[in-house]
């Protein structure tokens, strides 16, 4: 790792001011991606601004229609909250127990790894990403591989998920990393159906419009027969683009069946 200072402000405003003051400062959430990245010298911030001491960013609350998860809430805590069971199951399937005790939802969404699980939940449930500056609809938030709508000095403070009538997330694990080789999040709320796919596309997480249309007409696995997502799929040593495109259909059917 290159050398850096680590700062742990207890107030959100101070953290934002630190990001503004130090041009190459970086936010540290749970560090489960950032620390390995720093070790590989793929990032060289002069200052790391840890959010761990900002208590306001932690915790889960819900009202009749929504669940709000503080950005600094770790995966294990989301896994233990069963308000949206598909969301807790997704959080409980990220990485391993030690990773789930450190990694945070805000960190995952800010990083927007194309194979991460949380982006599928945010997009698949139509969440709102609340930041230090504004509210961003999930549909506007994800902008490609590791790209988001966040400004350099903007910090995610919480994520609000509408409670669906039914939802499920099914992923095909990459067995070594337990990232999604392909993961599909399906939700239904009234007549609104959402299908979000992670791990598959060269453009990162996406809504599969063809599947949403088919499921809106008939919310059953067989409605997806013969459908394949369009667009460029990821091809690597773990799976070819064709294999991933096929898996998207299989995972989506399983998710619908589990709803």
């Amino acid at each position: 790792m290159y050398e850096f200072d680590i700062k742990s402000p207890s107030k959100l405003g101070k953290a934002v001011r630190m990001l503004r003051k130090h041009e190459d400062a970086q936010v540290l959430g749970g560090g489960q991606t950032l620390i390995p990245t720093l070790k590989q010298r793929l990032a060289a911030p002069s200052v790391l601004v840890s959010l761990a001491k900002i208590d306001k960013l932690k915790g889960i609350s819900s009202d009749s229609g929504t669940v709000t998860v503080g950005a600094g809430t770790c995966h294990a805590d989301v896994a233990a909250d069963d308000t949206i069971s598909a969301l807790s199951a997704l959080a409980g399937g990220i990485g391993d127990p030690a990773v789930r005790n450190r990694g945070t939802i805000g960190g995952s969404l800010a990083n927007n790894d194309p194979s991460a699980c949380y982006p599928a939940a945010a997009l698949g449930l139509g969440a709102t990403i609340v930041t230090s500056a504004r509210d961003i609809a999930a549909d506007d938030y994800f902008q490609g591989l590791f790209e988001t709508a966040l400004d350099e000095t903007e910090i995610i403070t919480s994520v609000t998920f509408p409670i669906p009538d039914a939802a499920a997330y099914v992923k095909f694990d990459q067995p070594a990393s337990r990232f999604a080789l392909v993961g599909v999040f399906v939700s239904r709320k009234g007549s609104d159906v959402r299908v979000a796919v992670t791990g598959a596309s060269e453009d990162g997480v996406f809504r599969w419009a063809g599947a949403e249309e088919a499921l809106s007409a008939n919310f059953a696995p067989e409605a997806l027969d013969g459908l394949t997502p369009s667009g460029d799929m990821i091809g690597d040593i773990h799976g070819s683009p064709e294999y991933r495109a096929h898996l998207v259909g299989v995972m989506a059917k399983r998710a619908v069946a589990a709803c």
Partner: protein
Amino acid sequence: MAQVKMTVNGKAVSAPAEGRMLLSTYLREALGMTGTHVGCDTGQCGVCAVHVDGKLVKSCNMFAAEAEGAEVTTVEGMANEDGSLGAIQQAFQDHHGLQCGFCTPGMVMAASALLKVNSKPTEAEVRAHLSGNLCRCTGYHNIVKAIMAASGQDVAVAAE
């Protein structure tokens, strides 16, 4: 260099640590507590696992500064007060839950974290809980047996 203070195995400690110092480095090099091993140093293998405020974490995937003020437990804190092996450690010995022993500190800390929240886990729960701890010798069966035994369960049928 900032002075980082925490409690390790019930004892208050303090040592200088630059920002990039990992908790694993702090334990091993600043405190000389080499029971916590470093295997892959990339957050994959889990041999560096310790408890921070009661939660299982990989100490190579956390900065020492992030543990400022925390209660840290390492494998050195797993023995009984008289120095004899703790129940989990003893079970690993009794059931041959280690061969080379390199992964054992992480396995013991993972087992202890599990049994704190789930005193009678099923074999499947034990295996799922060990998903972040790699062992290249045992094939895991005897580790699972040891953890089942440490939880007071019959291991005659477990892990067969």
